[in-house]
């Protein structure tokens, strides 16, 4: 089965004679890529994401490729007659897991997002943020091949936002393609493989470098590897800055969301690297000047 999702000259409008929301869109989403979609409100970002998740069919053009897809809507309803765990178990089985596996994965992910205490609370009694966590967990628990996030961070507390960034980093390292929309420019800053802007119902690839102040929190790892050794593949992709102050000693900087990916790559490399120190750098423009 073809895992690349491709949009060929795709257009979408609502109704037979409605105005075109999107037109002439060409986009390929290979496995393992992280794509950010930007644009002001009401320009068709959500429509594009619905086309990518294949919830909507294009009015013209062609969408091909059938990755196993999970979707997180921007606002998740609480009007579902289930407990959080009950709903997630159902969705896990819909995504193809067995019932016990779905329950296990749901509990694990709820715990990661700090929502374990609400597992047996009826959805109707959940706060907006907690129900958004349920929406996020629903998408992550079956390890999809394509993850579509429509402002999934909105409404989450800061711990859960960071956890979702780490989960996205983990999934992309595991081969999942992730497409997301978010209004915070620091969201996964510096990480996406491509950033597109929806403009005049078309799609522009953003080529200029993002402004420096958009950098998110970073983590610096000092590690010792085989002399003259090449960084392991996954580490190479995650790292935004690397220097070698002494032979065999490397100072590697990654976005905070990718620290686990880097450490895993270093420690599981053959031969393994030795991690000397891990330090979190504060976010913001002063990161560069202090060094």
């Amino acid at each position, binding site marked *: 089965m073809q895992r690349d999702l491709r949009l060929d000259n795709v257009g979408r409008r609502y109704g037979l004679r409605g105005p075109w929301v999107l037109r002439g869109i060409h986009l390929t989403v290979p496995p393992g890529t992280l794509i950010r979609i930007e644009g002001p409100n009401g320009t068709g970002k959500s429509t594009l994401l619905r086309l990518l998740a294949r*919830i909507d069919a294009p009015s013209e053009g062609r969408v091909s490729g059938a990755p196993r897809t*999970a979707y997180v*809507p921007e606002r998740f*309803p609480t*009007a579902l*007659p*289930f407990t959080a765990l009950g709903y997630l178990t159902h969705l896990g089985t*819909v995504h193809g897991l067995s019932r016990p596996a779905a329950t296990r994965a749901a509990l694990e992910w709820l715990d990661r997002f700090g929502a374990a205490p609400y597992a047996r609370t009826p959805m109707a009694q959940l706060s907006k943020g907690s129900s958004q966590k349920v929406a996020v967990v629903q998408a992550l628990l079956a390890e999809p091949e394509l993850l*579509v996030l429509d402002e999934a961070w909105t409404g989450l507390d800061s711990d859960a936002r960071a956890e979702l960034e780490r989960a996205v980093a983990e999934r992309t390292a595991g081969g999942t393609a992730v497409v997301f929309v978010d209004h915070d420019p620091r969201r996964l800053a510096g990480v996406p493989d491509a950033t597109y802007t929806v403009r005049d119902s078309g799609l522009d690839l953003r080529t200029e470098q993002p402004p420096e102040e958009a950098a998110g929190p970073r983590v610096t790892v000092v590690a010792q590897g085989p002399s003259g050794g090449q960084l392991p593949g996954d580490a190479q992709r995650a790292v935004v800055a690397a220097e070698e102050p002494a032979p065999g000693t490397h100072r590697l900087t990654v976005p905070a969301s990718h620290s686990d990916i880097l450490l895993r790559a270093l420690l599981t490399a053959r031969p393994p690297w030795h991690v000397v120190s891990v330090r979190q750098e504060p976010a913001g423009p002063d990161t560069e000047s202090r060094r």
Partner: protein
Amino acid sequence: MTALLRYQAALLVRSQRWLPPFLLYVVFLGIGVQGGQPILDSLGYTAAALLPVTAWLVRICVTNEPPAARSCVSAAVGPGRAHLAALLVALGTAVALGVVATVVVTLISNPASADLQTRVPRLPAGAAGLLAVLACALLGTAVGALTTWPLLRSTGRAIPAMLLAALLSVVVTGSPAQAAVSGLVTGSNSGRVPMPVLPLAAAALLTAAAIAVACALTSRRSP
């Protein structure tokens, strides 16, 4: 598909929105069927009353899931399959309801023709009643599927359209449901048990087409 059906069924049962159509059916039967009446007449009524109830159940199953939750399921399995599951759960519920009603009506009715002169055996009569109930449940599903999202979105138009279509499917000559029900009624007059196989087949074909149209449109209409 099993997981999807299970999810939709749980959604219907736990939402408790099945209760009003269920009660409506009980009331229908309470008014129209009494113990000791000619069996085929009562079975015909049982089948006919099921059609609008089924259409209502379909409407409930399709509108039960909030759009954002439906999007999550649609992304996982495709919007057509997600919609199909909702329609099948409504159909299954209606069939279960109709089968129970048919068994009860078969047991409490008088196994005789309308003029009480000819004996009508219970078992074949019950079987004919089951076929008619199936035909009506199928056609009710078609009516429901064609008069709700994604075909009709505004409630103000959808509900009158559903009621009118359900009424017409029961009374207009040429409708498989009407054929099945009137077959039972004429059978009751003559004392011969009809087997409404042809109406059932026609109803199955019509419903399959209606379901196909509804499922195909799910990804083309806005939520």
